[in-house]
């Protein structure tokens, strides 16, 4: 990967403008390298939105009542809108969102593997909203706050507004089910045990194993992986403490922050056959490779999307 020191004169001039606080509005100001990193960021983000809706669809069969079905369908509608927002921007780069969603090889979809494990219960769905929409929002909120390309900031306002709604919805119902009965309380804890590691690993490699990326060089984002991970950890653990469920963390009084338990394995690779963690420490390379191979719903979920075949269970 090119390093910041490799910047051409025109890249350096663009970086200087950005560092002086200027926002880029006109694509005529782009350098090829700036354009490439923006386009890649958008492509990953837009396709990621599509994978959330195929994942959320699997929650329908588990919804306990009409209100829950409406919540799931609202979430799906939102995710379509998020793909739309970023897809409209991608048009400016000459990339077709229609093509990315409906003609992409399903094995080449960019996704988090958790989006390719079917939802097993509505409680798992709301816990995932509470923890993973929280994780995703830090990624997009960073771009809304800090991206040097002004149209991307604007496009994310709607997205971040709705992501906050999703994780608040998840938080409300996680707390509800935690307090509803012993059975639902156990189901919440089981869901947390499955979902929490996905949240912790959401941001990929730790900073000390990464080189300076063009995303940071050109201020597409300002928060590093470790920064976002810590923001998520503190927020998720405060939520856990308020509700009462367990996480593999403790509050360190000296540091005045939550930290992972020392024996917690980082990173881990999920077992796609057992739909569970083996709780064995893996390597970051293996974990990143597991993102590429995906979960058990790959490629079927995207093939169904591309056939526009939603099935009887929807109704």
């Amino acid at each position, binding site marked *: 990967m090119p390093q910041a020191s490799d910047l051409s004169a025109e890249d350096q001039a663009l970086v200087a403008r950005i560092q002086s606080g200027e926002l880029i*509005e*006109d*694509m*005529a100001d782009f350098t090829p390298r700036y354009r490439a990193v923006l386009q890649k960021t958008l492509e990953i983000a837009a396709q990621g939105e599509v994978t959330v809706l195929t994942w959320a669809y699997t929650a329908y069969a588990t919804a306990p009542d009409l209100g829950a079905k409406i919540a799931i369908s609202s979430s799906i*509608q*939102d995710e*379509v*809108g998020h793909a*739309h*927002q970023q897809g*409209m*921007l991608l*048009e*400016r780069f000459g990339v*077709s969102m*229609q093509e990315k969603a409906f003609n992409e090889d399903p094995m080449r979809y960019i996704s988090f593997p958790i989006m390719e494990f079917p939802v097993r219960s509505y409680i798992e769905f709301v816990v995932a909203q509470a923890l993973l929409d929280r994780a995703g929002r830090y990624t997009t909120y960073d771009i809304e706050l800090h991206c040097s390309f002004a*149209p991307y900031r*604007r*496009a994310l306002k*709607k997205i971040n*507004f*709705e992501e906050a*709604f999703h994780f608040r919805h998840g938080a409300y119902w996680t707390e509800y089910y935690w307090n509803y009965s012993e059975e639902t309380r156990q189901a919440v804890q089981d869901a947390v045990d499955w979902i929490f590691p996905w949240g912790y690993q959401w941001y990929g490699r730790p900073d000390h194993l990464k080189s300076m990326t063009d995303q940071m060089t050109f201020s597409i984002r300002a928060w590093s992986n470790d920064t976002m991970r810590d923001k998520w950890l503190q927020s998720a653990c405060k939520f856990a403490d308020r509700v009462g469920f367990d996480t593999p963390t403790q509050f360190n009084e000296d540091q005045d922050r939550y930290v992972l338990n020392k024996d917690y394995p980082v990173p881990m690779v999920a077992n796609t056959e057992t739909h569970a963690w083996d709780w064995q420490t893996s390597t970051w390379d293996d974990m990143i490779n597991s993102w590429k191979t995906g979960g058990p719903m790959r490629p079927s979920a995207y093939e169904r999307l591309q056939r526009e075949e939603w099935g009887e269970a929807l109704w």
Partner: protein
Amino acid sequence: MSIEESPMYEVFAREKLDGPLSHIGCIRAANRELAAAHAGMTYSEKPWVEMCVAPTDSFLRCIGDDKDVIGHV
């Protein structure tokens, strides 16, 4: 006509009766009626008191150089 060949429309909405009508996004649609319907479905994040759409090519830029700034979000 594919969706990407369809005309683009700008979407505006007002959050409060005494607030501004603001540009919130854009959509493509085959005709005006579909544009209004599509905008209402896509930009449902707030309980707007007013929303309207207008064809992108009906706008004249007064300030700024990038003719693509309005449209494409």
